[in-house]
């Protein structure tokens, strides 16, 4: 059987080691430049896939689903400088970063269906291997001057650039999920929630400092991260031939 599938995803970066260009000389205060990541529900993306399904029996099938995935995640880094150790005058610099990653994922998954009606729940699990196709970074920097009377934005700039050197070319891990399969005879519809766990680090350590636009201008370098990607998908599957006879099912009550 073949089909199409698509849906939305939400990326949660899992930080394994933090990096910061800034080192505070007076470490008794909060450190500037530490990244704060947005939670997964703030990082929507989407994916669409081609489905090739091989039915092993009436309760189990294996799927190969080449998928184009658009992952987004966001973080911000804040910096501040105060006058003579007081808050009467200060300059704040906030940099918001959006990382946009495009992957071609090649997942292989098993699906185990339950029940025998037209609507059947299932669980699924498998492995995936992804190729990075493109990476774009968008950053917005805002500088603010504040004193006891008011606060004024000094400068606000946005810049976009290539972020491919910051990431490794491959990403792999495993999938797990659950959903429903709706058999309409001519086609089958699926709805699933899938959790995608990347087990390798996507940050390219050798390229961490390689893009001087980011290191010199934005003071930004990538933390070591893995990607955890929950997603919601709907799909449609077209049978290519008459369904084979169901496996023998013996129920003992």
């Amino acid at each position, binding site marked *: 059987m073949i089909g199409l599938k698509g849906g939305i995803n939400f990326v949660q970066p899992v930080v394994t080691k933090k990096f910061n*260009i*800034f*080192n*505070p*000389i*007076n*470490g008794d*205060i909060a450190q*500037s*430049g530490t990244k704060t990541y947005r939670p997964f529900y703030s990082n929507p993306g989407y994916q669409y896939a081609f489905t090739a399904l*091989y039915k*092993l*029996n009436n*309760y*189990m099938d*294996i799927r*190969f689903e080449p998928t184009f995935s658009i992952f987004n995640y966001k973080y911000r880094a804040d*910096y*501040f*400088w*105060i*006058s*003579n*150790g007081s808050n009467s005058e*200060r*300059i704040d*610099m906030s940099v918001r970063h959006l990382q946009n990653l495009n992957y071609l994922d*090649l997942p*292989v998954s098993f699906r185990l269906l339950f029940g025998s009606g037209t609507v059947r729940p299932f669980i699924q699990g498998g*492995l*995936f*291997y992804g190729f990075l196709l493109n990476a774009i970074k968008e950053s917005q920097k805002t*500088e603010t001057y504040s004193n006891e009377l008011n606060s004024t934005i000094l400068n606000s700039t946005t810049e976009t650039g290539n972020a491919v050197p910051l990431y*490794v*070319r*491959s990403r*792999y891990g495993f999938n797990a999920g659950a959903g429903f399969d709706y058999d309409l005879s001519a086609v089958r519809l699926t709805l699933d929630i899938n959790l995608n766990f990347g087990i*390798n*680090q996507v940050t*390219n*350590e*050798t390229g*961490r*400092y390689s893009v*001087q*636009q980011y*290191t*010199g*201008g934005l*003071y930004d370098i990538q933390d070591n991260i893995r990607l955890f990607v929950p997603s919601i998908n709907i799909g449609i599957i077209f049978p290519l031939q008459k369904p084979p006879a169901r*496996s*023998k*099912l*013996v*129920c*003992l*009550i």
Partner: protein
Amino acid sequence: MVIDLKIKLPESAISFLLLLLLLPGFFTMCTKKTEMEPDENWVRIYDHSDYNRLFNPLDVKEIADQNFLVLASSKPDTTVWPVPFLLGTGREGDIIWSVYNENYISPVPDIIQTDGGYYFFCMDNALGTHVLKINLDGSSPELYKSFANFTYPLFASKTTDGKILLTSYNRVNRSTVLTCFDPGFSIIWSNEYPAIENYEEKVRLHLTRQDSNFPFFTGEVKPDASGYYFVNGFYNFVFSLLFVSPLNGELTGVVNGIPYSAAASSLIQRSDNGYILTRFDENQNYINSETSISFVSVSNITAMGGTSWPEINRNAIVKSIKTNINGNEIIVVSTVTRSNQVLILFFDPETGVMKASRYFGSTYPVSIASVTPTDEGGLAVLTRTYVAGRFSRIQLFKISPEKLEF
């Protein structure tokens, strides 16, 4: 209820399944190395949250365990004279300790490594010169020796035979002073080279970073066994490059500059009879890697030729070292561009031919303070940067040998 699932997989499906399971492993094997040792390449900015405090880096040395020692000066923007500030970092540039010394002012490069310790010259409020010994445990540097007769220390360096050269400015005699010390900082000789004008104000503004930077430096060349020491400083009515006898400091030759518009910015011996001279002249910078320079006569800096480098910043500081990178001896000439990048040029020591260039950093103003080879065969580059375009801070690059392959 017990459900017994009897599943029979066709052989083709099993083969297909095994193939798919092996695919990730195959792709992983094909992936090139993307992880690196933690200390190979990085840039660090040492920031302070007080925006009224200024930092001016002076020199960096790699010490034991591939850690770094940074000498800098620091002051609030409401005061004139900066005090010594020292920074000890780990191999990845993380701060291990930092210390100010409020008892002295105006530290000058270089950090001098001698007798198993690290030292630097600085001044007191009466303008007398002192040598402080750096404590690598992070405690305040302690007084090692004092030379009250020497005023306004400007630059120090170490010679190949372990002697120490210090140039200073004598405010009473209005002269540039070159002093040669033994490794224990005992004076071997000291000589003065008189200036006609009074340059004290220029020297003060240079040391307090309130005006143009002057390329004060000392060093040595050895075209023969005895060789010559050199000092760049005020002489007669111009900023000049002076060559002196290593035996007693007697003046042997002069390359005269042009008042406030042309001077040498660095000199290094690249081979037995080859030298690389950099100079600035009327907003342009020149690098001559095949310079013909006399150490025993009077000449003029504008006649020293060289290739014009329009991208190099006006009156840029230039630092030249001879080192070994990836198994090859090389001359490294470092400076900054008008577009706020560190420019590092690599010259063949035998031929003087430029072999490669590298650019680092961008966006905010930067000036070079020091370049030093690292134990692993790369470079560490110390610069001053203006963080967010505003705050004068210390910036340290570490560049791995892999980034310097050419």
